């Protein structure tokens, strides 16, 4: 078994100004070369947990560990050379070109004064190509469609060339083809260079397809964690999402057929 690179140890997280912890007493270990998918209903704490792992949010209790040490004690830039974060709804200044945005991904590697190297340019080009944006690189980000914009942000995190990616709903707003392209890209990078990924997803079948392990979140806690097939059971889905569903295995992949909200449908 490979080593744990990133871990939440009994972490409690609360957003500034909020009155309750959005994440409570969560334990999650992410091993090098592993893909972990966070699933769960809206407001179950997926984004908050990702923010904590990305050291965006300091735990009120518990620890976020990076390679065994306290993640918050590592210089920001060094952390950013290893861990890239895609926030759920990032803001972008008007007038910024796609290329300039993706170029920001090189920041942790370049330093404040040094010039960009050929390697930096290559990383930006590769990221643009991977996200199918090479033709759009001169366009202003605000003129892109929602899906294209999402891909531009993904390209920025790819250009960061880290060995760990934390992605908060990367496939939201993408059309079906680009959803699967993102998933395939992550799977390929994981197989080829051992990329470690923590990703929150709404689509359970996609989560099962992509991830080695899923963590099902419910009201700020991890309700169940482990292999997708063992975790995503009809019982769990009823308890966590409140839906009746049918979970089967077809050609080796998990099929989840929701049959409507358990209580709402029954009352019809």
């Amino acid at each position, binding site marked *: 078994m490979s080593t744990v690179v990133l871990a939440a140890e009994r972490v409690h997280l609360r957003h500034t100004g909020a009155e309750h912890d959005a994440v409570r007493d969560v334990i999650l270990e992410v091993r090098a070369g592993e893909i972990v998918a966070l699933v769960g209903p809206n407001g179950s704490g997926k984004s908050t947990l990702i923010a904590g792992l990305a050291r*965006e949010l300091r735990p009120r209790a518990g620890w976020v560990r990076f390679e065994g040490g306290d993640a918050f004690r590592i210089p920001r830039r060094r952390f950013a050379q290893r*861990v890239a974060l895609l926030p759920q709804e990032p803001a972008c200044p*008007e007038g910024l070109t796609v290329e300039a945005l993706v170029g*920001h991904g090189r920041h942790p590697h370049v330093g404040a004064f040094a010039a960009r190297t050929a390697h930096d340019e290559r990383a930006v080009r590769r990221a643009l190509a991977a996200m199918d944006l090479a033709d759009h690189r001169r366009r202003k980000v605000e003129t892109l469609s929602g899906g294209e914009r999402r891909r531009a942000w993904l390209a920025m995190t790819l250009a960061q060339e880290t060995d760990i990616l934390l992605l908060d709903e990367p496939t939201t707003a993408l059309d079906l083809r680009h959803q699967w392209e993102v998933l395939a890209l992550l799977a390929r990078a994981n197989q080829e260079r051992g990329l470690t990924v923590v990703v929150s997803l709404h689509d359970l079948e996609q989560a099962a397809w992509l991830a080695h392990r899923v963590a099902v979140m419910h009201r700020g806690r991890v309700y169940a964690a482990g292999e997708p097939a063992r975790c995503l059971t009809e019982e769990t889905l009823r308890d966590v999402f409140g839906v009746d569903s049918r979970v089967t295995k077809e050609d080796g992949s998990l099929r989840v057929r929701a049959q409507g909200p358990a209580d709402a449908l029954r009352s019809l």
Partner: protein
Amino acid sequence: MSAIAARARLHLAARSERPGLWIGGFGIALLASAMAAAGLGAVAVPPGQLGEAALDSGHPLHAVVWDVRLPRVAAAAAVGAALAVSGALLQTVVRNPLADPAVLGVTGGAGLAAVATLVMVPERSHWVPAFAFAGGMATVGILLALAWLRSRVVAGPLRIVLSGVALQAVFFAAIALLMFAFADRAPSFTAFLVGSLNGLGWSDVAVVALPTGIGLVASLAAIRTLDLLLLDDSTAGGLGLSVRRARFGAATVAALLAAGAVSVAGLVGFVGLVVPNAVRLLVGPAHALLLTLSAIGGATLVLLADTGARVSLAPLELPVGALLALIGGPYFLVLLWRKLG
């Protein structure tokens, strides 16, 4: 209609990739307005004679050009560059195009400290720039504290601007009270409140040039950090930037720039609002070109306004700040309505 707009935008985008052309064009405008400022007035000096009159102490117009006009030209340019870059920095810090050292109360805080120094410890008048900086910094501190008290991210689009407007009003009132109480020692009330470059000499130029120089170098050295500050806090933090520290640093430089300008010119407003917003429309939000062109454009605008203030109703001289407010006020309204619309 929209096709024309789209083509115009394309055209602009293409041009923004030639920074040399922009800087050259702005530079020529600055040079022309500086020559106009040095040449026009009660005694007109033709452009061809300017150089000679400035350098040759035997020239009949030497005193006019060297002792009166040129220090004023240099001070106007420095004040304009400082205020414009200060505005650009503050707009990035609070992520809001309505920010400006005057709108946010930074010039008011600096001005209050400057006036307090002048009237209460007149023998320490050489400390005015330092105290002005402290006053500007204190204002920045209050604003950032207000923004952070409520939430981790920058406060909503208007809250911080309105806080600044309120602070500026308080500082105005305090300055007015001080000047009223110490009427015998106070500098010219209206000139200071509106902003004026009347009667500046080379020693005043030194006072504004030093903080302006330091501020310009510091902000140009930080262009990459400033570019990252335009993204949201999570993204910038994820890219390895210490967002609070960067924001505080940029605000410090903005306060330094504003304080230098206030120390010699009083409460000149709106330069920091008008210039960076116009430049951003032309070349986009990247700071390398934004700050460079804002500095040159700010210097040009204040030079033109000051020359206009001197010659339009000669021999009567208008306060330059009033002219700038006539341009800047409506501009602010337009921005505000667009922002809210």
